[in-house]
């Protein structure tokens, strides 16, 4: 199923290997942290959040500071972590409900996007570039050239992340 012929997989310092190692380590930590006694929706959601953050963080750490987007993401994660430590548990429960709502809003918003790029190509380009800035971490502060380059690297890393997560999920479900 999985093509092991790619020489990059065998390289112990490749992006894929670095990410896999970190992410598996984080997963083991998450699994060992809390006793999986009850599967209440809130605990499931918290675990899902932790895994997602661990995945993004592992990828950003594997890239280290070599890219603007990874620096921006690490900074965002760090500031969110210190913010969360200061807040009480009541506040975090409010946040989980807003996060669920924003997820639902995101999927409905995506359907509207297909109709935007009519008319002139110029306007469409700038509008799409602004949308791209919001998607790529740290994109708001980049100029156009850097934005396009960072986007290419970001997409490459995201596809690696999805590949590895899919493989792990497959192994776990065996």
């Amino acid at each position, binding site marked *: 199923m999985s093509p*092991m012929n790619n020489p990059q997989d065998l390289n*112990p310092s490749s992006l894929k*290997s670095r990410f*896999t*190692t970190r992410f*598996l380590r984080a*997963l*083991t930590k*998450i*699994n*060992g942290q809390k006793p*999986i006694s009850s599967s209440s929706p809130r605990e*499931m959601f918290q*675990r*899902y959040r932790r*895994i*997602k953050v661990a*995945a*993004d963080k592992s990828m950003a750490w594997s890239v280290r500071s070599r890219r603007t987007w990874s620096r921006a993401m690490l900074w965002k994660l760090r500031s969110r972590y210190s913010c969360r430590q200061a807040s009480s548990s009541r506040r975090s429960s409010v946040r989980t409900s807003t996060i669920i709502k924003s*997820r639902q809003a*995101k*999927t409905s918003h*995506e359907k509207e*996007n297909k109709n*935007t*790029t009519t008319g002139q*190509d*110029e306007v*469409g*380009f*700038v*509008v*799409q*570039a602004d*949308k*791209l800035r919001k*998607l*790529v971490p740290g994109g708001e502060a980049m*100029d*156009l*050239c850097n934005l*396009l380059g960072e*986007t*290419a690297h*970001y*997409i*490459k890393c*995201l*596809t690696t*992340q*999805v590949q*590895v*997560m*899919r*493989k*792990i*999920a497959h*192994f*776990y*479900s065996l």
Partner: protein
Amino acid sequence: MSSRRSRSKQTGGSRITDDQINDLVTKLQQLLPEIRNRHSDKVSAAKVLQETCNYIRSLHREVDDLSERLSELLATTDTAQAAIIRSLLMQ
């Protein structure tokens, strides 16, 4: 085409040529699974950016779904498997 030069005012001091932008947009196009095979002349830069945004959003959603799936699987699986999995993936 020449009106694109007005956009360089946003970037401050550096001069960005149209060719540079076109190069980068072409590079991006190669990464997108849907329009990779289409002839590059027929796809406008705005379309490439739009497809890029959609692709990134779909990747984000996939990460979300996989995280959810992993959280469910973690609840039902032994932790010792992690070491086995790591060795399997590193081969």
